[in-house]
Protein backbone atom coordinates (compact mmCIF):
# COMPACT_ATOMS: atom_id res chain seq x y z
CA UNK A 1 0.00 0.00 0.00
CA UNK A 2 1.13 3.57 -0.67
CA UNK A 3 3.03 4.84 2.37
CA UNK A 4 1.19 8.17 2.56
CA UNK A 5 -2.17 6.42 2.39
CA UNK A 6 -1.04 4.02 5.10
CA UNK A 7 -0.04 6.91 7.34
CA UNK A 8 -3.41 8.56 6.76
CA UNK A 9 -5.24 5.30 7.50
CA UNK A 10 -3.40 4.91 10.82
CA UNK A 11 -3.82 8.61 11.69
CA UNK A 12 -7.58 8.35 11.09
CA UNK A 13 -7.69 5.15 13.12
CA UNK A 14 -6.17 6.92 16.09
CA UNK A 15 -8.06 10.18 15.59
CA UNK A 16 -11.22 9.60 13.55
CA UNK A 17 -13.17 12.74 12.68
CA UNK A 18 -16.64 11.22 12.64
CA UNK A 19 -16.52 8.36 15.07
CA UNK A 20 -19.12 8.51 17.79
CA UNK A 21 -22.71 7.94 18.66
CA UNK A 22 -24.91 10.84 17.55
CA UNK A 23 -28.21 9.29 18.50
CA UNK A 24 -29.54 12.56 19.95
CA UNK A 25 -29.38 14.31 16.57
CA UNK A 26 -30.00 11.17 14.58
CA UNK A 27 -33.00 10.44 12.50
CA UNK A 28 -31.84 7.16 11.05
CA UNK A 29 -29.47 4.35 11.83
CA UNK A 30 -28.13 1.53 9.68
CA UNK A 31 -25.53 -1.18 10.17
CA UNK A 32 -23.50 -3.85 8.42
CA UNK A 33 -21.28 -6.71 9.44
CA UNK A 34 -18.40 -8.40 7.68
CA UNK A 35 -19.00 -12.04 8.55
CA UNK A 36 -15.59 -13.14 7.37
CA UNK A 37 -13.60 -10.93 9.75
CA UNK A 38 -16.10 -10.01 12.45
CA UNK A 39 -16.07 -6.26 11.82
CA UNK A 40 -19.30 -4.32 12.26
CA UNK A 41 -20.32 -0.73 11.73
CA UNK A 42 -23.30 1.36 12.74
CA UNK A 43 -23.98 4.60 10.85
CA UNK A 44 -25.98 7.45 12.39
CA UNK A 45 -27.47 9.70 9.73
CA UNK A 46 -29.19 12.96 10.68
CA UNK A 47 -31.46 14.38 8.00
CA UNK A 48 -32.80 17.92 7.83
CA UNK A 49 -34.85 19.36 4.96
CA UNK A 50 -34.25 16.26 2.88
CA UNK A 51 -30.47 16.43 3.14
CA UNK A 52 -27.93 14.78 5.41
CA UNK A 53 -26.99 17.29 8.09
CA UNK A 54 -24.70 15.11 10.18
CA UNK A 55 -23.24 11.63 10.03
CA UNK A 56 -21.16 9.52 12.36
CA UNK A 57 -20.26 5.90 12.88
CA UNK A 58 -19.39 3.44 15.59
CA UNK A 59 -18.54 -0.22 15.81
CA UNK A 60 -15.72 -2.68 15.81
CA UNK A 61 -13.59 -1.84 12.80
CA UNK A 62 -10.14 -2.46 11.41
CA UNK A 63 -8.15 0.56 10.29
CA UNK A 64 -9.28 0.29 6.67
CA UNK A 65 -12.96 -0.11 7.57
CA UNK A 66 -12.57 2.81 9.98
CA UNK A 67 -10.99 4.88 7.19
CA UNK A 68 -13.81 4.03 4.79
CA UNK A 69 -16.46 4.90 7.36
CA UNK A 70 -14.78 8.17 8.32
CA UNK A 71 -14.39 9.30 4.71
CA UNK A 72 -17.95 8.32 3.92
CA UNK A 73 -19.39 10.29 6.85
CA UNK A 74 -17.35 13.28 5.71
CA UNK A 75 -18.60 13.15 2.15
CA UNK A 76 -22.32 12.55 2.71
CA UNK A 77 -22.97 15.85 4.46
CA UNK A 78 -25.21 18.06 2.35
CA UNK A 79 -26.31 15.23 0.07
CA UNK A 80 -29.66 13.49 -0.19
CA UNK A 81 -29.72 9.86 0.98
CA UNK A 82 -30.01 8.77 -2.64
CA UNK A 83 -26.95 10.78 -3.61
CA UNK A 84 -25.04 9.47 -0.60
CA UNK A 85 -25.83 5.89 -1.52
CA UNK A 86 -24.33 6.35 -4.96
CA UNK A 87 -20.92 7.52 -3.70
CA UNK A 88 -18.22 5.14 -4.93
CA UNK A 89 -14.95 4.00 -3.35
CA UNK A 90 -13.06 5.71 -6.16
CA UNK A 91 -14.71 9.02 -5.28
CA UNK A 92 -13.83 8.59 -1.63
CA UNK A 93 -10.25 7.53 -2.26
CA UNK A 94 -9.65 10.18 -4.95
CA UNK A 95 -6.05 9.67 -6.11
CA UNK A 96 -5.24 6.96 -3.58
CA UNK A 97 -6.37 4.21 -5.91
CA UNK A 98 -3.98 1.49 -4.64
CA UNK A 99 -6.65 0.11 -2.37
CA UNK A 100 -8.98 -0.45 -5.33
CA UNK A 101 -6.68 -3.21 -6.55
CA UNK A 102 -6.85 -5.09 -3.26
CA UNK A 103 -10.26 -6.81 -3.22
CA UNK A 104 -9.95 -8.16 0.34
CA UNK A 105 -9.16 -4.81 1.93
CA UNK A 106 -11.56 -2.98 -0.40
CA UNK A 107 -14.33 -5.05 1.18
CA UNK A 108 -13.26 -3.63 4.56
CA UNK A 109 -13.19 -0.11 3.13
CA UNK A 110 -16.72 -0.51 1.76
CA UNK A 111 -18.33 -1.83 4.95
CA UNK A 112 -19.84 1.56 5.82
CA UNK A 113 -21.03 1.99 2.22
CA UNK A 114 -22.74 -1.41 2.53
CA UNK A 115 -24.47 -0.19 5.69
CA UNK A 116 -25.60 3.06 4.07
CA UNK A 117 -27.17 1.16 1.17
CA UNK A 118 -29.48 -0.51 3.71
CA UNK A 119 -30.82 2.87 4.95
Amino acid at each position, binding site marked *: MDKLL*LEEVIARYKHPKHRGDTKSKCCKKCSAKNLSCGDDVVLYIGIQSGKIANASFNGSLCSIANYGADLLCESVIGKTVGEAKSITSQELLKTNTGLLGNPVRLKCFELAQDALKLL
Partner: protein
Amino acid sequence: MNRNDFPIFKNQPSLVYLDSANTTLKPQNVINAVQNYYENYSANIGRTTYDISEHATAAFNDARTKVARFIGAQPSEIIFSHSATHAINQAAFGIMHLLQPGDKILLTEFEHNSNVVAWQQVAKRTGAKIVWIDDNPNLSDVKIFTYSLVSNITGELFDYRSIVKNVHTQGGLVLVDATQAISRLPINVDQLGCDLLAFSSHKMYGPSGVGVLYARQETMGRLQPLVYGSQTFVSISRASTELLENYAKFEPGTPNIEGVIGLGAAIEYLNQVGMAKIQQHDEQLTTYALKTLQNAALNTTTRSSHIKKQVGVLPLPHPTIHPHDFAMLLNEANIAVRAGKACSDILMQKLELERGVVRISFGVYTTETDIDKFAAEYQEIIARFTNG
Protein backbone atom coordinates in the same frame (compact mmCIF):
# COMPACT_ATOMS: atom_id res chain seq x y z
CA MET B 1 17.86 -25.11 8.43
CA ASN B 2 17.29 -25.68 4.67
CA ARG B 3 16.80 -22.22 3.25
CA ASN B 4 19.05 -22.76 0.25
CA ASP B 5 16.81 -25.55 -1.03
CA PHE B 6 14.03 -23.01 -1.69
CA PRO B 7 14.64 -20.82 -4.75
CA ILE B 8 12.03 -18.28 -3.67
CA PHE B 9 14.55 -16.95 -1.15
CA LYS B 10 17.02 -16.22 -3.97
CA ASN B 11 14.31 -14.25 -5.77
CA GLN B 12 12.83 -12.70 -2.62
CA PRO B 13 15.84 -12.41 -0.30
CA SER B 14 14.11 -10.21 2.27
CA LEU B 15 10.97 -12.39 2.54
CA VAL B 16 10.10 -13.53 6.04
CA TYR B 17 7.65 -16.33 5.42
CA LEU B 18 5.66 -17.30 8.53
CA ASP B 19 2.61 -18.78 6.81
CA SER B 20 3.56 -22.41 6.22
CA ALA B 21 0.34 -23.64 7.85
CA ASN B 22 -1.43 -21.91 4.98
CA THR B 23 0.85 -23.31 2.29
CA THR B 24 4.48 -24.29 2.30
CA LEU B 25 7.10 -22.97 -0.09
CA LYS B 26 8.46 -25.37 -2.69
CA PRO B 27 11.96 -26.85 -2.70
CA GLN B 28 14.00 -26.99 -5.92
CA ASN B 29 13.58 -30.76 -6.36
CA VAL B 30 9.76 -30.42 -6.40
CA ILE B 31 9.96 -27.62 -8.97
CA ASN B 32 12.38 -29.75 -11.01
CA ALA B 33 10.08 -32.79 -10.88
CA VAL B 34 7.09 -30.83 -12.18
CA GLN B 35 9.19 -29.09 -14.84
CA ASN B 36 10.78 -32.38 -15.88
CA TYR B 37 7.34 -33.91 -16.42
CA TYR B 38 6.24 -30.97 -18.57
CA GLU B 39 9.46 -30.85 -20.56
CA ASN B 40 10.18 -34.54 -21.08
CA TYR B 41 7.18 -36.85 -20.66
CA SER B 42 3.95 -34.88 -20.27
CA ALA B 43 1.61 -37.65 -21.41
CA ASN B 44 -1.57 -39.02 -19.85
CA ILE B 45 -1.31 -42.09 -17.61
CA GLY B 46 -2.72 -45.62 -17.66
CA ARG B 47 -4.37 -45.36 -21.05
CA THR B 48 -1.72 -45.72 -23.72
CA THR B 49 1.48 -47.67 -24.31
CA TYR B 50 3.93 -45.27 -25.93
CA ASP B 51 7.14 -44.57 -24.06
CA ILE B 52 6.44 -41.19 -22.53
CA SER B 53 3.03 -42.38 -21.32
CA GLU B 54 4.60 -45.45 -19.74
CA HIS B 55 7.15 -43.15 -18.12
CA ALA B 56 4.39 -40.90 -16.72
CA THR B 57 2.39 -43.90 -15.47
CA ALA B 58 5.45 -45.31 -13.72
CA ALA B 59 6.25 -41.94 -12.10
CA PHE B 60 2.63 -41.56 -10.94
CA ASN B 61 2.57 -45.07 -9.46
CA ASP B 62 5.93 -44.46 -7.83
CA ALA B 63 4.49 -41.38 -6.11
CA ARG B 64 1.60 -43.49 -4.75
CA THR B 65 4.12 -45.91 -3.26
CA LYS B 66 6.11 -43.04 -1.71
CA VAL B 67 2.97 -41.57 -0.16
CA ALA B 68 1.97 -44.95 1.24
CA ARG B 69 5.38 -45.63 2.77
CA PHE B 70 5.49 -42.14 4.24
CA ILE B 71 2.47 -42.91 6.45
CA GLY B 72 3.05 -46.65 6.98
CA ALA B 73 0.31 -47.76 4.57
CA GLN B 74 0.03 -49.89 1.42
CA PRO B 75 -0.09 -48.20 -2.04
CA SER B 76 -3.51 -49.79 -2.57
CA GLU B 77 -4.80 -47.81 0.43
CA ILE B 78 -4.01 -44.41 -1.12
CA ILE B 79 -6.66 -42.40 -2.98
CA PHE B 80 -5.53 -39.23 -4.73
CA SER B 81 -7.95 -36.30 -4.65
CA HIS B 82 -7.81 -32.60 -5.46
CA SER B 83 -7.26 -31.30 -1.93
CA ALA B 84 -7.58 -32.30 1.71
CA THR B 85 -11.08 -30.82 1.63
CA HIS B 86 -11.95 -33.08 -1.30
CA ALA B 87 -10.43 -36.06 0.54
CA ILE B 88 -12.53 -35.30 3.64
CA ASN B 89 -15.64 -35.02 1.49
CA GLN B 90 -14.80 -38.35 -0.18
CA ALA B 91 -14.54 -39.91 3.27
CA ALA B 92 -17.69 -38.27 4.64
CA PHE B 93 -19.98 -38.92 1.68
CA GLY B 94 -18.30 -42.27 1.04
CA ILE B 95 -19.42 -43.66 4.39
CA MET B 96 -22.68 -41.73 4.61
CA HIS B 97 -24.61 -44.85 3.58
CA LEU B 98 -23.50 -46.55 6.83
CA LEU B 99 -25.24 -43.96 9.01
CA GLN B 100 -28.72 -44.22 10.50
CA PRO B 101 -30.88 -41.50 12.07
CA GLY B 102 -29.67 -40.92 15.63
CA ASP B 103 -26.11 -42.14 15.01
CA LYS B 104 -23.51 -39.75 16.34
CA ILE B 105 -20.70 -38.02 14.47
CA LEU B 106 -18.12 -36.85 17.00
CA LEU B 107 -16.14 -33.69 16.17
CA THR B 108 -13.70 -31.55 18.11
CA GLU B 109 -13.79 -27.79 18.47
CA PHE B 110 -10.35 -27.59 16.83
CA GLU B 111 -11.54 -28.67 13.38
CA HIS B 112 -10.86 -26.73 10.21
CA ASN B 113 -14.15 -25.62 8.66
CA SER B 114 -13.66 -28.24 5.93
CA ASN B 115 -13.91 -30.97 8.53
CA VAL B 116 -17.11 -29.49 9.94
CA VAL B 117 -19.15 -28.49 6.91
CA ALA B 118 -18.92 -31.87 5.16
CA TRP B 119 -20.10 -33.71 8.29
CA GLN B 120 -22.94 -31.28 8.90
CA GLN B 121 -24.14 -31.98 5.37
CA VAL B 122 -23.88 -35.73 5.95
CA ALA B 123 -25.81 -35.35 9.22
CA LYS B 124 -28.50 -33.37 7.44
CA ARG B 125 -28.91 -36.06 4.79
CA THR B 126 -28.88 -39.06 7.15
CA GLY B 127 -30.50 -37.83 10.35
CA ALA B 128 -27.24 -38.49 12.20
CA LYS B 129 -26.35 -36.10 15.00
CA ILE B 130 -23.19 -33.99 15.35
CA VAL B 131 -21.77 -34.07 18.88
CA TRP B 132 -18.79 -32.04 20.11
CA ILE B 133 -16.07 -33.52 22.22
CA ASP B 134 -15.73 -30.44 24.47
CA ASP B 135 -19.38 -30.87 25.49
CA ASN B 136 -18.35 -34.20 27.07
CA PRO B 137 -21.06 -36.15 25.25
CA ASN B 138 -22.11 -39.73 25.90
CA LEU B 139 -19.97 -41.68 23.44
CA SER B 140 -22.45 -44.48 22.84
CA ASP B 141 -23.63 -44.71 19.21
CA VAL B 142 -20.65 -42.73 17.90
CA LYS B 143 -20.28 -44.08 14.37
CA ILE B 144 -17.74 -41.53 13.16
CA PHE B 145 -15.03 -39.77 15.11
CA THR B 146 -12.91 -37.23 13.27
CA TYR B 147 -10.19 -34.97 14.59
CA SER B 148 -7.25 -32.81 13.51
CA LEU B 149 -4.00 -34.34 14.66
CA VAL B 150 -2.45 -30.85 14.85
CA SER B 151 -4.64 -27.76 15.16
CA ASN B 152 -4.20 -25.27 12.33
CA ILE B 153 -4.74 -22.45 14.82
CA THR B 154 -2.96 -23.44 18.01
CA GLY B 155 -0.45 -25.94 16.62
CA GLU B 156 -1.42 -28.33 19.38
CA LEU B 157 -0.79 -32.02 18.82
CA PHE B 158 -3.60 -34.22 20.09
CA ASP B 159 -3.74 -37.74 21.42
CA TYR B 160 -7.24 -39.25 21.31
CA ARG B 161 -6.23 -42.90 21.45
CA SER B 162 -8.62 -43.70 24.32
CA ILE B 163 -11.58 -42.30 22.36
CA VAL B 164 -10.42 -44.01 19.16
CA LYS B 165 -10.44 -47.32 21.04
CA ASN B 166 -13.92 -46.63 22.42
CA VAL B 167 -15.30 -45.76 18.95
CA HIS B 168 -13.74 -48.86 17.39
CA THR B 169 -15.22 -51.07 20.10
CA GLN B 170 -18.64 -49.89 18.93
CA GLY B 171 -17.80 -50.58 15.28
CA GLY B 172 -17.34 -46.90 14.46
CA LEU B 173 -14.80 -45.36 12.10
CA VAL B 174 -12.09 -42.78 12.76
CA LEU B 175 -10.92 -40.12 10.29
CA VAL B 176 -7.78 -38.15 11.11
CA ASP B 177 -7.23 -34.77 9.47
CA ALA B 178 -3.45 -34.79 9.22
CA THR B 179 -3.21 -31.69 7.06
CA GLN B 180 -1.10 -29.72 9.54
CA ALA B 181 0.66 -32.72 11.06
CA ILE B 182 1.90 -34.32 7.85
CA SER B 183 4.84 -31.96 7.33
CA ARG B 184 5.68 -31.58 11.01
CA LEU B 185 6.07 -35.03 12.54
CA PRO B 186 6.36 -38.69 11.54
CA ILE B 187 2.92 -40.19 10.83
CA ASN B 188 2.02 -43.86 11.03
CA VAL B 189 -1.57 -44.91 10.42
CA ASP B 190 -1.21 -48.07 12.50
CA GLN B 191 0.10 -46.15 15.49
CA LEU B 192 -2.77 -43.68 15.15
CA GLY B 193 -5.21 -46.55 14.79
CA CYS B 194 -7.26 -44.60 12.26
CA ASP B 195 -9.42 -45.98 9.46
CA LEU B 196 -9.14 -42.92 7.26
CA LEU B 197 -6.61 -40.10 7.08
CA ALA B 198 -6.61 -36.98 4.92
CA PHE B 199 -3.96 -34.42 3.98
CA SER B 200 -2.92 -32.15 1.15
CA SER B 201 0.24 -31.89 -0.92
CA HIS B 202 0.65 -28.13 -0.85
CA LYS B 203 1.08 -28.04 2.92
CA MET B 204 3.95 -30.54 2.74
CA TYR B 205 6.19 -28.77 0.20
CA GLY B 206 4.42 -30.30 -2.81
CA PRO B 207 2.30 -28.70 -5.54
CA SER B 208 -1.23 -27.49 -4.90
CA GLY B 209 -4.21 -29.31 -6.40
CA VAL B 210 -3.48 -32.70 -4.88
CA GLY B 211 -4.98 -34.24 -1.76
CA VAL B 212 -4.64 -37.68 -0.28
CA LEU B 213 -7.17 -39.92 1.41
CA TYR B 214 -5.76 -42.99 3.10
CA ALA B 215 -8.43 -45.67 3.59
CA ARG B 216 -7.54 -48.85 5.45
CA GLN B 217 -8.15 -51.82 3.13
CA GLU B 218 -11.31 -53.02 4.89
CA THR B 219 -12.61 -49.45 5.14
CA MET B 220 -12.03 -48.82 1.44
CA GLY B 221 -14.28 -51.78 0.71
CA ARG B 222 -17.12 -49.97 2.51
CA LEU B 223 -16.47 -46.60 0.89
CA GLN B 224 -18.64 -45.34 -1.97
CA PRO B 225 -17.22 -42.99 -4.62
CA LEU B 226 -17.96 -39.28 -4.42
CA VAL B 227 -17.43 -38.78 -8.16
CA TYR B 228 -17.96 -41.29 -10.97
CA GLY B 229 -16.40 -41.52 -14.40
CA SER B 230 -13.91 -43.13 -16.68
CA GLN B 231 -11.05 -45.41 -15.57
CA THR B 232 -13.06 -46.62 -12.57
CA PHE B 233 -14.79 -49.75 -13.82
CA VAL B 234 -14.32 -53.37 -14.85
CA SER B 235 -17.04 -53.26 -17.50
CA ILE B 236 -19.57 -50.86 -18.90
CA SER B 237 -22.67 -51.37 -21.02
CA ARG B 238 -25.78 -49.40 -21.93
CA ALA B 239 -27.48 -50.98 -18.94
CA SER B 240 -24.90 -50.63 -16.18
CA THR B 241 -21.32 -50.26 -15.01
CA GLU B 242 -19.42 -52.67 -12.82
CA LEU B 243 -17.01 -50.60 -10.73
CA LEU B 244 -13.51 -51.70 -9.79
CA GLU B 245 -13.04 -52.79 -6.20
CA ASN B 246 -9.91 -50.79 -5.46
CA TYR B 247 -8.61 -47.21 -5.12
CA ALA B 248 -9.04 -46.59 -8.87
CA LYS B 249 -12.80 -46.36 -8.54
CA PHE B 250 -12.30 -43.18 -6.48
CA GLU B 251 -10.04 -41.53 -9.08
CA PRO B 252 -12.17 -40.94 -12.20
CA GLY B 253 -10.83 -38.90 -15.09
CA THR B 254 -7.32 -37.63 -15.71
CA PRO B 255 -5.70 -36.83 -12.38
CA ASN B 256 -3.31 -34.00 -11.54
CA ILE B 257 -0.36 -36.01 -12.87
CA GLU B 258 2.33 -33.38 -12.44
CA GLY B 259 0.98 -32.54 -8.99
CA VAL B 260 1.16 -36.15 -7.82
CA ILE B 261 4.66 -36.54 -9.25
CA GLY B 262 5.60 -33.31 -7.46
CA LEU B 263 4.15 -34.70 -4.24
CA GLY B 264 6.38 -37.74 -4.66
CA ALA B 265 9.36 -35.38 -4.94
CA ALA B 266 8.21 -33.51 -1.82
CA ILE B 267 8.16 -36.78 0.11
CA GLU B 268 11.67 -37.54 -1.14
CA TYR B 269 12.67 -34.13 0.17
CA LEU B 270 11.05 -34.67 3.59
CA ASN B 271 12.67 -38.10 3.89
CA GLN B 272 16.03 -36.65 2.95
CA VAL B 273 15.81 -33.97 5.64
CA GLY B 274 14.28 -36.46 8.08
CA MET B 275 10.92 -36.13 9.84
CA ALA B 276 12.43 -36.51 13.32
CA LYS B 277 14.79 -33.63 12.58
CA ILE B 278 11.93 -31.54 11.18
CA GLN B 279 9.85 -32.15 14.30
CA GLN B 280 12.78 -31.17 16.50
CA HIS B 281 13.32 -27.99 14.45
CA ASP B 282 9.61 -27.10 14.74
CA GLU B 283 9.56 -27.66 18.49
CA GLN B 284 12.72 -25.60 19.02
CA LEU B 285 11.31 -22.73 16.98
CA THR B 286 8.01 -22.93 18.87
CA THR B 287 9.80 -22.73 22.21
CA TYR B 288 11.92 -19.84 20.94
CA ALA B 289 8.88 -17.98 19.59
CA LEU B 290 6.92 -18.42 22.82
CA LYS B 291 9.88 -17.04 24.76
CA THR B 292 10.51 -14.17 22.32
CA LEU B 293 6.88 -13.15 22.05
CA GLN B 294 6.31 -13.57 25.79
CA ASN B 295 2.67 -12.89 26.56
CA ALA B 296 1.56 -12.09 23.01
CA ALA B 297 0.82 -15.70 22.08
CA LEU B 298 -2.44 -17.31 23.13
CA ASN B 299 -2.05 -19.45 26.22
CA THR B 300 -2.74 -22.92 24.94
CA THR B 301 -1.81 -25.00 27.93
CA THR B 302 -5.01 -25.76 29.75
CA ARG B 303 -7.87 -26.34 27.36
CA SER B 304 -7.86 -30.04 26.57
CA SER B 305 -6.53 -33.08 28.38
CA HIS B 306 -5.79 -34.57 24.95
CA ILE B 307 -3.12 -31.99 24.07
CA LYS B 308 0.41 -33.38 23.98
CA LYS B 309 2.51 -30.44 22.80
CA GLN B 310 2.60 -27.43 20.46
CA VAL B 311 4.33 -27.75 17.10
CA GLY B 312 5.07 -25.01 14.64
CA VAL B 313 1.91 -22.88 14.76
CA LEU B 314 1.25 -19.96 17.13
CA PRO B 315 -1.85 -17.79 17.41
CA LEU B 316 -1.49 -14.19 18.61
CA PRO B 317 -4.72 -12.46 19.59
CA HIS B 318 -4.72 -8.76 20.38
CA PRO B 319 -7.43 -7.00 22.38
CA THR B 320 -7.78 -3.94 20.15
CA ILE B 321 -5.72 -4.05 16.96
CA HIS B 322 -7.37 -6.02 14.16
CA PRO B 323 -5.42 -9.06 12.87
CA HIS B 324 -5.80 -7.72 9.32
CA ASP B 325 -4.14 -4.47 10.38
CA PHE B 326 -1.20 -6.43 11.76
CA ALA B 327 -0.99 -8.41 8.52
CA MET B 328 -1.17 -5.26 6.41
CA LEU B 329 1.72 -3.60 8.25
CA LEU B 330 3.74 -6.80 8.53
CA ASN B 331 3.43 -7.05 4.76
CA GLU B 332 5.01 -3.59 4.49
CA ALA B 333 8.04 -5.19 6.16
CA ASN B 334 7.83 -8.19 3.78
CA ILE B 335 6.63 -10.51 6.56
CA ALA B 336 3.93 -12.96 5.49
CA VAL B 337 1.46 -14.20 8.12
CA ARG B 338 -2.14 -15.41 8.20
CA ALA B 339 -4.66 -13.10 9.85
CA GLY B 340 -8.25 -13.69 10.84
CA LYS B 341 -10.11 -16.88 11.68
CA ALA B 342 -8.00 -19.05 9.38
CA CYS B 343 -10.97 -21.26 8.44
CA SER B 344 -11.58 -22.27 12.06
CA ASP B 345 -14.74 -20.44 12.98
CA ILE B 346 -15.88 -22.95 15.59
CA LEU B 347 -12.71 -22.57 17.66
CA MET B 348 -12.74 -18.79 17.28
CA GLN B 349 -16.34 -18.68 18.51
CA LYS B 350 -15.38 -20.77 21.54
CA LEU B 351 -12.39 -18.55 22.28
CA GLU B 352 -14.57 -15.45 21.71
CA LEU B 353 -12.11 -14.18 19.11
CA GLU B 354 -14.60 -13.06 16.51
CA ARG B 355 -11.95 -11.15 14.54
CA GLY B 356 -9.50 -14.01 14.77
CA VAL B 357 -5.79 -13.87 15.42
CA VAL B 358 -2.46 -13.26 13.78
CA ARG B 359 -1.13 -16.74 13.12
CA ILE B 360 2.52 -17.45 12.56
CA SER B 361 3.63 -20.88 11.41
CA PHE B 362 6.96 -22.41 10.58
CA GLY B 363 8.55 -24.56 7.91
CA VAL B 364 11.90 -26.22 7.43
CA TYR B 365 13.28 -22.89 6.15
CA THR B 366 12.16 -20.82 9.15
CA THR B 367 14.91 -19.39 11.33
CA GLU B 368 15.10 -17.72 14.73
CA THR B 369 16.05 -14.55 12.85
CA ASP B 370 12.64 -14.69 11.11
CA ILE B 371 10.97 -14.85 14.51
CA ASP B 372 13.12 -11.97 15.82
CA LYS B 373 12.15 -9.81 12.81
CA PHE B 374 8.50 -10.66 13.31
CA ALA B 375 8.59 -9.94 17.05
CA ALA B 376 10.25 -6.56 16.53
CA GLU B 377 7.78 -5.56 13.84
CA TYR B 378 4.82 -6.82 15.88
CA GLN B 379 5.81 -4.59 18.80
CA GLU B 380 6.43 -1.67 16.42
CA ILE B 381 2.91 -2.04 15.00
CA ILE B 382 1.38 -1.99 18.47
CA ALA B 383 3.30 1.20 19.16
CA ARG B 384 2.19 2.78 15.86
CA PHE B 385 -1.45 2.06 16.59
CA THR B 386 -1.45 3.10 20.21
CA ASN B 387 1.03 5.99 20.59
CA GLY B 388 0.17 9.58 19.75
